[in-house]
Every structure is written in structure tokens, then in C-alpha cells.
């Protein structure tokens, strides 16, 4: 579903932030990007989401190259990132309708999906409250509901459990597993080991814009000869990170 082939990204006049990254995310799997802040995870995701153009390499989503079919790909993608905020003075109900119209989903279908996803996340009682009055966890749940309003086959979640309490994060993780069962291809970025280990079918460890290890959590532990996944990550990190 997502194919990233030898992709590099360089911002104007500055160092390369993503170097020769390649990976594939299959249907019905969760692929995790794990790395410290500033490793290049968000840049990779934005390139897949057509918000940035790669400097070199090719990215395809459902076999469509991102540079040529941006609008079609956006229809196939659900993108959740902390950088996309909800309008603070709007209400979940209005926002759902608004994005429904932007995605050109028929009104009755929007109503149907709204009912379903509001029930799934328990948004119902807050549907007519202003976003600004809601808790961080509730906002995140609404963001997830809205980013998936068009039922996209490909889902990109950038740090979905960041800043959430244990309960809400658990709800989000369960939901991700549900989505995998439904056959969505999911790309997930995180810097929380437990989340990566519990959810991901395959993990790529990113250090300084390069993939330094890729495979299941078990593979990575074996490869590095360490006891836990956390140790495996640090072994790979110290081995590959260069102080600039």
C-alpha cells in the first residue's frame, strides 16, 4: 500500500534530514517508525502525505506516485499529526460535517459515520461542546475520528499517543489494532518502545535520517544480541549516531 524507495529529503541550504530511506507497508499491517526527536520521522510521513516533496527517490501510495497524484492520494490517506489542530471555537459535530463536505461525502453517509465513530470513542456527550473546552484526550480522539472520516485504506499516525493518559492511550492502541484487522495499512511513528513493541508488525529504527535497523521487535533484539527491545534500540542508536 505504501512504498518508499530510496527517498532523501534536503531542505534548502541545510543538511540532509532524510537519507536513502526505503520501506514498504502492506495491507493489514502496522509499520512503526521509531527514533528520537528530530530523527526525520515527521518529514518521512509528510512526504508520504503529499505535504512535502522528496528531494530524490519515489514514494507510491496504492501504486500512485505522490508527486503526480497528490489529490488522489489525499483521498486514500488518513493523516493524523500533532501539527494539525482542531478549530478551538468549533464543535466536534460541526467539524465532522465540515470535513465531510471537504471530502465530498454524501450528507447521510457523514451522519452515519459520525454516529458510529462518536459512539466508538464516546464523543457523543461532547458533540456540541466547543473544542477549547475539551480535554487533551478527547481532542485526540476527535482528531482521530475526523482524520478517518473518509474511511481511507492507508492511515498515517504521527505520535498518536503523545501526551495522552494511560487510559486514552490504551483506547487508541486498541483502535489501531481494530483498524489493522479491518485491513488498513498503518504507518505509525512513535518514540515509546512499549507502543512500538505491542503494535507494530515491522519496525524501522531511524537515527539521523537513516534507517539503521528494520524488522520485527524480536528480529532487532536478536540482531543486536541484547535482552530487551529498549536495549536493542540503544545499541543501534549509539552505534550509528554521530555527534555533529
Amino acid at each position: 500500500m505504501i512504498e518508499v524507495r530510496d527517498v532523501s529529503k534536503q531542505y534548502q541550504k541545510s543538511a540532509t534530514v532524510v537519507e536513502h530511506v526505503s520501506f514498504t507497508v502492506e495491507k493489514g499491517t502496522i509499520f512503526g517508525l521509531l527514533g528520537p526527536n528530530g530523527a526525520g520521522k515527521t518529514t518521512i510521513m509528510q512526504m508520504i502525505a503529499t505535504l512535502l516533496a522528496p528531494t530524490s527517490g519515489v514514494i507510491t501510495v496504492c501504486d500512485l506516485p505522490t508527486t503526480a497524484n497528490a489529490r488522489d492520494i489525499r483521498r486514500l490517506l488518513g493523516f493524523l499529526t500533532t501539527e494539525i489542530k482542531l478549530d478551538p471555537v468549533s464543535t466536534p459535530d460541526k467539524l465532522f460535517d465540515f470535513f465531510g463536505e471537504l471530502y465530498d461525502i454524501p450528507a447521510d453517509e457523514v451522519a452515519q459515520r459520525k454516529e458510529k465513530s462518536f459512539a466508538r470513542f464516546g464523543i457523543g456527550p461532547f458533540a456540541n461542546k466547543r473544542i477549547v473546552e475539551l480535554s487533551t484526550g478527547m481532542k485526540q480522539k476527535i482528531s482521530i475520528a475526523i482524520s478517518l472520516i473518509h474511511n481511507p485504506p492507508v492511515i498515517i499516525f504521527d505520535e498518536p499517543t503523545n501526551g495522552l493518559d494511560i487510559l486514552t492511550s490504551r483506547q487508541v492502541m486498541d483502535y489501531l489494532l481494530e483498524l489493522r484487522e479491518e485491513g488498513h495499512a498503518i504507518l505509525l511513528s512513535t518514540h515509546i518502545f512499549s507502543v512500538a513493541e505491542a503494535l507494530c508488525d515491522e519496525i524501522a529504527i531511524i537515527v539521523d535520517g537513516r534507517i539503521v535497523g528494520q524488522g520485527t521487535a524480536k528480529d532487532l533484539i536478536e540482531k543486536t544480541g541484547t535482552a530487551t527491545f529498549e536495549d536493542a534500540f540503544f545499541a543501534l542508536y549509539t552505534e550509528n549516531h554521530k555527534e555533529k
Partner: protein
Amino acid sequence: MNRAIWALAKKTFGKSNQLKTNVTSATFVIAICFILSFLAIFASYAQYFFRGNVTADYLSAENCHVLVYNAPDSFRSFLASDTNSDESYERSIRYATIDAYYDVFEINAGMKENDAVVAIVFPSDFEEKIANISSDSDERPEILTYMSDAHLEYADIHENLEDVLLRDYNIYLLSEKDVPIAERNIFATDNWAVSYESDTTLEDSFFNMVAHMIIPFLFFVLILYVGMCSGMNAIAGEKERGTFAGILMTPISRLSIVLGNLLGVWLHALLPSLIFVPAILIVPQYRTATAILATVMLLATLSLFVASLTILVSILNHSIISAQTTFLPIFLILLVVCVTCMQETDMVDRIYLIMPIYGHYHGIALALTGQFSWVDGLICTGITLAFIVIIICACERLLQTERFTTTIDAESAKDLKKARDLIEKQKTDYIVKPKASVFGYAPKQRTKPSRFLLWHAFLPLALLSIFQPIALIPSILSFMSSAKSTEFVQIFKDLQNLTDIADALQQSANLFSQFMKDPTFIWMMSVSYFLIIGVYLLIVKKAEKNPLSTLGFPNKTGNKHHSPLLSYARGLGVGLLMISSVYGILAITGQIELEGFSLSLSSLPLFLGYIAMWIPQGASEEVMLRGYAMPRLAARFGVPFGIFFSSILFSILHAGNVGFSFLAFINLILIAVFFALLAYYTKQIYTVAAAHTIWNFAQGNLFGLQVSGSKSAASVLSTVYSEKATSLMTGGDFGPEGGLAVTIVSVIALLLLVALRNKIKCDLNSKESLLP
């Protein structure tokens, strides 16, 4: 797709009510000020419209009178003796006096009060002028006749007045006064048409004026203000709240985003003004189908144009406040365009009718008064739509580019931080080692060299061009209501007829010398120089957060020989010595001749005014260049650069004066370098401020010479150039500063200063004086 546009439009339309920022309030205040000042103008007009007893029959034949202003005795006795002329004249003539005989408004009002259709205006010193007529001069006093150009039925009265009455009066004067026979005409006549009566009724002309001056203006303010509030909140607001990326992630095209927002802003800007349209219909004169249709069409395109501009600005910015700041100049420019349109109510060139903005303003006015041309209106609409399409395309392109699509992510934030660190490092490096320290100034922040230089080059220029015209306002007002306005108007009339630049400059100088004779102007100039000094004090204190000592006003000096007062006194001595040497050289070489004392008691207030003006004048120029610019430039680029750049600036500031020449340019640089070095050595600017003041004062008001191109009106001595004077020595019209005498004196002064520098250089805190 259409649904998406509509959804965005609804969102944008619903959003705009909730924003309140300082810039919005600032814009609001500006708009209110404009409306208030405008209403004030309107009120004065309205007073003029409804003055006196306006009755339908006030112009009926039996009520028509001739109004004579400033009638000299000879005219009255002529009327009494004149048996030939129609008796009705004597019966219908009324007398009045007026100071300014070009004051059309006053004469208008007078004519209305006295039910007069024709007015004759004598200069107040008519008899005097007649007595001074000589055969070798063409100068004649001028009698003005006024009549309403709208009432041709009274044209014969007017003609009769000019051809018969005044001709007879001329003959009468010739016989009565002792005037050479060759002089056939004792006075000249000039007739002026007054159109206080248009061919329609008074009520109509009132509504005409409202249609031209008030209604379009209110529409503009409304559309601009609402459009700005709404447009800035649309995309820039979305970016600020972080919700824009969510919209960008949806599969709608960038064009739809632009169009959706545009539609929302457009509706928002248009609706309030549309509500106003029915209000206009209350006035019967405006109630025509053309008026309504054309007004609605023009309002629609105008608000669409404004909406597209706001969207463009909104896309270019990342926050509401920055977008509003960007839009504020556009807002002001468009308001100024409105004011320009207001002034051209009749005979508008066709080009203005088809141009956007101008066309909208005039179009609305003409539609209301029933003179609208659909062809022009449609061309204007077409051109506006073309502009809008171009703007929309630009918006779409801008949204396509990468940097508008995403917010700053972690990586670029890192780059940003790196760049910021680098700048911080440079800053600290720079602050640690400024190239030189003059007056103890050390910079606290670093700006780009180009910006830095531009700031220092344009700050004095900008302040002078803001504050000096302010000083002109009271003078112009008092001038226009005084008898001198005649002279003033004459100069303006002459100015319009001139084609040669040199002549025009000379004439402007005459105009300026008119002002230089006015104590109000001199005192206001004094105030404006104080204000300029105040601005610099504020800049240093508030913006730079530096002590005033860095401006050359040292704090308490431990050394009593360097107290501000003593330093100032020494400056007066130095300046007087220098300018006296110049005067001496000119006198010895026979370039000038002393005519004697010329200060009279009557010119004493003016003389005192000059003293009050030269003190802040000298001080302000020193604060600008030696106090502010020099130390700051020196810290950045070294002392030589600081002195040289500020000196060139000083010279350039005088370049607009009459008679400015290359030698004047060099001389001013030499003097400026002298002042700069003196300030540098003495570590303060009291001395140079005094020297500057006394230099100008002594030149203009002691010796009676020109000061950088301007001649003062009150001087102790009167000096004239002798016949063998050459402008190379004396500087001609520019005054001695444009001549070799000043070159000689300033070079000698400079050499002396450099030679004596070790004696002059002082330690402000040492107890001992190094000065002789």
C-alpha cells in the same frame, strides 16, 4: 467540489466576528478618525450651504444688489457725482470690507447675505497704490469683480458694471488724481466666476455633494474594514490556529481553497454595505433604477476586489497580526484614494472612471446623481474582474509552494535554531568588540548593514519631512485668513505658470521667505525642532534602552570645567569666532558692504522668534548627526566612517536649499567634519550645538547674510553683496556656506582642531581642566 467551496465559504463567513486584535482596533480608530475629520469638513460645507435666508425669490430682479468690498472714498464720491450711470446702481449698492480679497467663500457668503449677484472687490490699500503709480512701471492695482456663473440673466449687469461703471470710474480717477496723461488705465480688472448656485436647486446641490463626498466614502470604509477583519482571519488565522494543514490534507484543490475563502470574505464584506443601499433610497433624488443597479454592481466588484487582496495578504502571512500589519498600508492607501476622489467631484477624466477603486468611487457618486455611464461602469467592472482573476491565480500558486503547505517541523526547527544560534553568536561577538566607542555607546543588537545604513540615512530626512510641514500648518491657516494671502495666492499663481525648474525653485524660495517673515512660523519651527530632539531622546531611552550620555549628553561630569553650561558657552565662542572670520574675509576682500543697522522695534518679536528657533535648530541637527548617527556608525564601522558618513548626510540634508552648489556641498562636509571632530574630542555635543546655533544665528540675524539658502527678515546689521562680489567667494544665493570664504575658515579651523586635539580632548571625570 462545489460543496467544498461552499463549506469553506460558510466557515470563513461565520468566523470573522470573533477576532479582536490591536491592529483591528488601530484600523478601526483610523477609520473613525477619517470619518470624523471628514464629517468636520462636511459640517463646514453644510454651514456654507444653509447660510443666510435661503428663499426661492432671493434672486428676483428687485432684490438684486451689487456688493462693494473695501470701497475707497474716491469710489463713493464717484458714485455720488456720477449722473450718467443708471440710478439703480446707487440704490442697490451695499458696502462691506474684507481682508483677503481672493477669499471666495467669504465673498460668497457676503453676497448671499446681501442678496447680491455681483460683487466688486477693491484691494484694501487701493488708494495707496493709486498714489504710487508711476509711468515707468506696469504695476496696477487690480479690482476683482465676482458674479455667479450660473445666472446668465445677470450677465448684462455684470458686463455693464465692467464696461460702463468701472470705465467711468477710471475716467473719474484720471480727472481727479494727478496721474500722468499717458496712463489711460489706472487699474486692472479681473473677473471671477462664483458658482455657489448651480443650475439646480440648493437642495439638489446638497444631495449632489453628499453623493460625491459621503456615501461612496462610507461604503469604502465599511467594505475595507469588514473585508480586512474577515480576510485576515481566513487563511492567516487558520495558519495561526494550526487548522490550515487539516484543510490542506483533504483532497480538494488549492484553487477551491482560495475560492471558498474568497467567497466567504466577499459575502462578509458585501452584506453590510448592501444593507445600506435601501437606506440611500430614502432620498428621492437617489431613487432611480440605475442608481440601485449600478451601486449594487460596483459594491459587489469592489468588495470582491478587496476580498481577493485580503486573501492574498492572508496567504502570505502566518498570523492574523502580521497579516493585518501587512494590510494596514493597503487600507490607508485606499482611503487616501477615496479622499483624492472626493476632491475631484466634477470633470473627472474618463481614465478615472474605468480604473478600479477610482472608478468605483466615482461610479457610485455618479450613479446616485444620475450621471452614471453604463459603458464606463462595465469597463471598470471588467478591469476589476481581470485584476481579481490575476490575484486568485497568484493565491493558488502561492498555496502550491511547499513552505505554505506545512508548518515548521522538527527538522526545519532545528535549522532555524542553528541559524538563530549563529546570529546570537555574531551578536555577542559584535557586542564584545564594537569598532570604536564614542560617547560610551555600545550597541545591544545587530542589524544588517544595509538596514543599519538606511536607518541612519533616512531617519533625519524622515523626521524633518514630518515635523517641518507640521510647523507650516498654523502659518498657512493664519496666512489664508489675512491680507497677506493675496501675496501668497499670487506666488502660487506664478508658480503654476512657470516651466523652468530654476525659476520654480526661486519662486518656491520666495514663498518660503514669505513664511520666514511670519513669527508664527518661526515659533512653530522652534517647536518642531524640539519635537525632533524629543523623538531622538525617546529612541535612545525607550527603543535602544541606552543612557542619554550615548547621545552626547553626558551624565553629571565630575569636572566643573566641563559642565553643560560652560561647554555651551565655549561653543558659542567658537561658532561666533568662525562666522566672524568669514564675515571678516568677505569684508576685507570687498565682497560685501555693510549698510548699517536694520533692526527695528517692530521686527523685535520676529528677532526673538529667530533666537528661539536657532537654539533647537542647531541642537536638533547636532543630536541627529553628531549625537545619534556618528557614535552608532562609528561603533559599527569605525570612527572615520562615522564622521565621514554623518558629515555627508549633513551636507545632503541641505541639498534641497536654494543655490546649493558643489562648493556648498564640500563646505558643508568640511564644517560637519569640524563639528564631528569637536564633538568626538570633547565627548559631548553641547559645544557643537552651541557653535551650530550661533553660526546660523550670527550669519542670518546678526550680519544679515543668507543661511543655507534662506534669508532672514529680522537682522541687526544689514549687509549686501558689493558690485564686485563673485558668487565663488560669497556663495551667491546659498549664502557664505556656498563660497570660498567658508572653505578657508573651515579648513583653518579643522587644522587648528587637529593640532590642538590633545589640549581639547578631555576626561569628563578628571578634576583638572585640560582646556586653556
